């Protein structure tokens, strides 16, 4: 309990639970939603994006236990997972009283935004940088299905591995992630002709990898320690943390612009600093 501005500050139970689960279970949960392709919204998967091509719902060992067939060539299924470096606190979901947003934000060393009474806070600080993939599928060699991993979900594929899974025999393998926390986009990419049905695509955090991937081209919004780690070569302070940014201060900005904290859907890894016209 902390006394602030003469008011007692209570940490709401939902917020407490969120923090606790983040600390305790960050390395144990399934990394993707609907790994068994059971949730269908019409002809599309509810939790996966079909970037290209066409998919179909088909039975696997049982007509009611579905898998996804990558029908056309090419077909790409993808899902963005992980947590951004920072995001706006969902005060309502966390049961934080509107009057307590500022004090709560201060408590967690976030950046309070008085104009909108919102709090920008750091939500991802680390965790296991290794993922175990468990795949059950029936993929013909000619289908040339590969797993693509996009660190930071910035649109650039950073890692590719063929999906060698036929006859529904489960296969398992490890992929290292970069040392920095952030979003990851997993893609299942069918590039050739042939049958490709996937029943399970599970991704679990683990600490079994012997190394981590060093990627010194972190996208905007990702936490950083120095500019050389960022694709933009700029690592700027946001609040209690630093993130790859377009600017560190107003020096590099044009006339009438200031180096502001920007929250941009185009860069989902978190807030970053960029030169914007002063309001």
């Amino acid at each position, binding site marked *: 309990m902390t006394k602030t501005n003469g008011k007692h500050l209570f940490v709401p139970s939902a917020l407490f639970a969120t923090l606790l689960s983040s600390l305790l279970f960050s390395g144990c949960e*399934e990394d993707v939603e609907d790994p*068994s392709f059971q949730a269908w919204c019409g002809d599309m998967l509810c939790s996966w994006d079909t970037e290209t091509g066409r998919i179909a719902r088909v039975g*696997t*060992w049982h*007509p*009611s236990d579905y898998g996804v067939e990558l029908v056309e060539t090419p077909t790409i299924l993808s899902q963005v997972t992980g947590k951004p470096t920072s995001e706006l606190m969902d005060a309502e979901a966390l049961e934080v009283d509107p009057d307590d947003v500022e004090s709560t934000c201060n408590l967690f060393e976030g950046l309070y935004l008085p104009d909108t009474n919102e709090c920008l806070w750091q939500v991802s600080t680390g965790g296991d940088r290794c993922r175990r993939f468990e795949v059950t599928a029936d993929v013909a060699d000619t289908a040339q299905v590969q797993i693509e991993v996009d660190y930071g979900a910035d649109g650039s594929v950073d890692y590719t591995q063929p999906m060698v899974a036929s006859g529904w025999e489960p296969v398992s393998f490890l992929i290292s992630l970069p040392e920095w926390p952030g979003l990851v986009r997993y893609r299942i990419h069918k590039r050739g002709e042939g049958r490709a049905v996937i029943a*399970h695509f*599970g991704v679990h955090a683990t600490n079994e990898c012997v190394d981590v991937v060093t990627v010194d081209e972190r996208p905007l919004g990702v936490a950083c320690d120095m500019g050389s780690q960022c694709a933009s070569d700029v690592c700027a302070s946001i609040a209690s943390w630093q993130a790859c940014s377009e600017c560190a201060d107003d020096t590099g900005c044009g006339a009438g612009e200031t180096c502001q904290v920007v929250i941009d859907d185009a860069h989902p890894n978190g807030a970053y600093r960029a030169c914007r016209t002063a309001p």
Partner: protein
Amino acid sequence: MPRTLPSLGPLCAALLVLTAANPALAQDPQAAPRLQRVDLAPDAHAYALVVGSNPGGPGQEPLAFAERDAERMAEVLTELGHYPAGRVDLLRAPTRAQLTSALRRLRQRVSIHDARGEQSVVFFYYSGHAQSQALRLGGEEFPLSELRAAIDALPSTLTLVVLDACQSGAYSRVRGTDPAADFSHNSIQQLQTRGVAVMASSSGDELSQESERLSAGYFTHHLLVALRGVADENRDGRVALDEAYRYAYAQTLLDTSRTAVGGQHVTLDTNLTGHGAVALTYPARASAQLELPAALEGQLLITRTRGDTVMAELDKAAGAALRLALPAGRYHVLWRGEGVIRSCSVTLPARGVHVLSASGCEEITEEQATARAADSGPSMAWGAELGFGFAMEGRDSDYTDRLDDFGYQPGFFDWNWNLRLSAAVERQIRPHLSVLLTFDSLESRTFDRTFVDDSEDTFAWRAWAVGVQLRGTLPLAGHWLYGYAQGGAGLGIARSRFNPGREQDPTNVQVDYGVQLSAALGLRFMPWAHAGFYLQGSYTFAPILQNDLGDRHDSGGVAIVTGLRVQL
């Protein structure tokens, strides 16, 4: 042949009681009263109270055939004695209260005829344990004095009472083993009152026996054979009381004299002054008869195919034809005579007389005859079993491995064993060989798959098997312990249910069918003639379940089952 038993004290076995006021034991059948025709009206109302009780009292082993003897006596009375089926009251292992109630009911019914001035006949038969002063009804006693009072109170024109009182040995089943008692003498003396007469299966210092070979008490068996017509000496188509007595006396003595226990002499005491010969049965009026022609001679063992029941065993002399009234059906006759042994299959039509002839028989060897005779033991036509137990193994398969591959885990109640329910109906087709219709619940399995959002897919199935099996049975000890082996095939049925955790998807139910094979070894404990227990180990191969990827699951496996058995 009955086994030799240690010498036991004097006792008796069976009594036939008639109206009498003058006690006079007739030990010599030739001295038995030659009775004239009875003065009963043709429409005399006939009633029978037939009682059989296998259970023994404290220190007594249960009898094997007392209740069966009573059943057969009731059958003969109905078939050939003109006792209407509705007036034959058959009590199996009754309590004292039930017997008292039956006697009271009998008296009430007879009293109605007496009040109308109508004649009536009462036949009372009892087979079971007894002590010197009482019948033994399991753990209870029924005093002879009470029986005497009940019989005295019957206002019938003619009262016939058969008491077959016994205690038993394990094999030859000596009846009445109380060395301090003379049941025969005491019962006759006590029942020897006005309106009552007695015929006993043995004299006062003898034992009575049951026969494994005949599956009956010696005396009751021969009395029944006599009543079926073999004892009809004067060929008048009726078996009179004295005729039945003389035949039963001779045959019982002949049979039992070969046993270690020794011969038993049937006794008869009557007082029918003013009456004529009492006709007990009318075999000539039977619709189905087996005639042994005049020229035929030798020893004959006549066995009914259904139930393998010995219907008659007799010595036939050449010179006169002999007819037996038997229920229509199939019979086997083992005929030893003229230096050869013949095996004859006979089918008695519902109406008509079948004449046995050598041309319809095949000659067999002594070994075959011995085997045939050995088959003439206690038998049953139908049996039913109901049991439960545990099934093991047969748990994991490519099918369950596939479930594991797809993320399913055994449910909380999916243990490494299953409760197995088993039921069977058995029909004997040959001695020691029977056919069973079986039903088994094979297994019940549940697998779950849980997702991050806590939704859960459940896949569960149950499997059953119905089949036909062939069982071979081997007696291991007396008539209470048997071993058996069986095997067969049938239909396996599996009903599976896929229940998706997401509400928008419906539950999917599938039914799979397949062939199942099964084999079993078991033990049957039969402490009672018609009921007992069984313990069985079985293996069932039932690859019924199959998934869309071609994996199969065997729902069978090893099972141990125990349960109850009844047989008729």
